[in-house]
């Protein structure tokens, strides 16, 4: 949707991101960097459906969980490299998205959202009760056997660069979508579905395409998560909390913008509930205050998300400077 002049800033951002993991060797900070890349990638994938196409999914944890479980199970049971398991998980998620999408994308607004929540809940319950396969509620431990083929690394910095690879791949796909007919069509569907149909937009097909692409990349990030934490459990991997987190990051960063989901992830991740351990007993619960504060501030002052509001503010500043310069 944007002009070619965005190439410069985007390339610059990639370079900066590549330098970030070199700025620290502290494991605590490196963990945040890994997580920002990981959640940034997941949020970017969610944005394809939720931001560009305007289909507000709160069930993306389902695809995340399928990715995490498929690669981990294939690795534990057959010693299959998670790199291959990741693609199997991605394919499974895409297939799942296609079926669920076909049944639910005709539903509009809140009804679609409810259908996606239900989907993730069903998978979560299945994962908890199907003990023989998934290890049930206690989850799945992936034995640590470092190596490139096993997708496990001794150093967090290596994880950071692998995570960055996933993030950049997702960003590249969104970059291509934005510049194609598909990108325009998805936004048109979000803005006015009936008008889009009158102009020949095959709405069902495009929504399915968006959800399939989004599910595939969310699934890859799920595998990355499993390989990083080496532990997958249904209460987390399929949780509504996780689905909401993807959506929140994008809302805060900027729905339907390229860089927004990454900005949202960079802001939210350090405050993330799952970071509570690091805040210590003295500050227990404090993260929730920060979390809430950020949300309130964004809703009050940056309704269109950080990416859009910053661009608008920058434009205002340029105009003001020009006006001052011309007297």
């Amino acid at each position, binding site marked *: 949707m944007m002009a070619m002049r965005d190439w410069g800033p985007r390339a610059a951002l990639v370079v900066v991101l590549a330098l970030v993991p070199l700025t620290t060797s502290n494991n605590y900070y490196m963990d945040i960097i890994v997580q920002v890349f990981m959640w940034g990638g997941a949020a970017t994938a969610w944005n394809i459906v939720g931001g560009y196409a305007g289909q507000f999914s709160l069930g993306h944890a389902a695809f995340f969980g399928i990715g995490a479980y498929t690669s981990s199970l294939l690795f534990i049971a057959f010693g299959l490299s998670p790199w291959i398991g990741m693609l199997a998980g991605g394919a499974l998620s895409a297939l799942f998205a296609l079926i669920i999408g076909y049944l639910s994308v005709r539903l509009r607004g809140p009804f679609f959202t409810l259908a996606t929540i239900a989907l993730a809940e069903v998978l979560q319950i299945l994962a908890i009760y199907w003990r023989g396969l998934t290890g049930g509620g206690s989850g799945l431990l992936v034995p640590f056997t470092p190596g490139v083929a096993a997708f496990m690394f001794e150093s967090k910095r290596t994880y950071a660069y692998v995570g960055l690879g996933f993030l950049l791949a997702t960003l590249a796909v969104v970059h291509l979508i934005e510049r*194609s007919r598909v990108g325009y*069509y998805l936004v*048109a569907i979000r*803005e*006015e579905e009936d*008008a889009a*149909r*009158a102009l*020949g937009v095959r709405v069902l097909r495009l929504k399915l395409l968006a959800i399939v692409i989004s599910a595939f990349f969310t699934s890859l990030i799920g595998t990355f998560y499993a390989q990083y934490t080496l532990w997958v459990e249904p209460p987390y991997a399929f949780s509504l909390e996780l689905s909401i987190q993807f959506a929140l990051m994008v809302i805060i960063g900027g729905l339907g913008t390229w860089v927004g989901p990454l900005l949202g992830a960079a802001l939210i991740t350090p405050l993330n509930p799952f970071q509570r351990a690091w805040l210590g007993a003295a500050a227990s619960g404090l993260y929730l205050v920060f979390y809430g504060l950020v949300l309130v501030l964004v809703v009050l002052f940056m309704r269109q998300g950080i990416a859009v509001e910053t661009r608008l503010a920058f434009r205002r500043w340029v105009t003001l400077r020009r006006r001052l310069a011309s007297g």
Partner: protein
Amino acid sequence: MAPLLEARGVVKRFGGLFAVRDVDLAIEAGEIVGLIGPNGAGKTTLFAVLSGFLRPEDGEVRFDGRSVVGLAPEELSRFGLCRTFQLVKPFGNMTVLQNVMVGAFLRLSSPSNAAREAERILEFTGMTHLRDVLAKTLPVELRKRLEVARTLATHPRLLLLDEVMAGLNPTEIKGMLDLLLTLHREGITLFIIEHVMAVIMSLCQRILVLHHGEKIAEGSPGEIARHPRVVQAYLGEEYLLA
């Protein structure tokens, strides 16, 4: 030669209520035909049926000789049948150019070609100076104009225009009228719903009148103005008797 658009015995019910009842119509390529009727006569419903947004309970609709009942609007637009909406539906957070590009993408897959085509349409419709404006910021006249421009970009053969003059002042109506006449000269067949009678009378070669979902009259503007059932439908029985 078969008419460009033909409907026979079209019925659309909402519950027990007939919104469109047993309507026949035929529109020849190159015509400008008007559709009038009191509020609630079923005009917009008939448009929705003809353009594929609603499926009729009974009857046959043929476009360019082929049966199109049950085809979705996105398929009908490929054949060259396109509608506008009474309550305009701009893609608010897209620019005027991008709005028109969405239409142009029907025939052109590359964004650069679609942008070029959209520029051409904007020039044709006199909106070039607005190309980078967000559609949601446009006043009603320009929204209506954008609605027409967007459908033009799909290269339609038949346009169903639903009250594109409503809410416009006399100067703006004149502008829209000129645009419609230009489209007609370009070879586009027009079927229009309109409440502004002066527009209908001056623009249309033929007029259909709908009342309570039924077609009660059809003819030239002069015939329609004198038709007793039309006068009765619009002004009530007493007027006729007086």
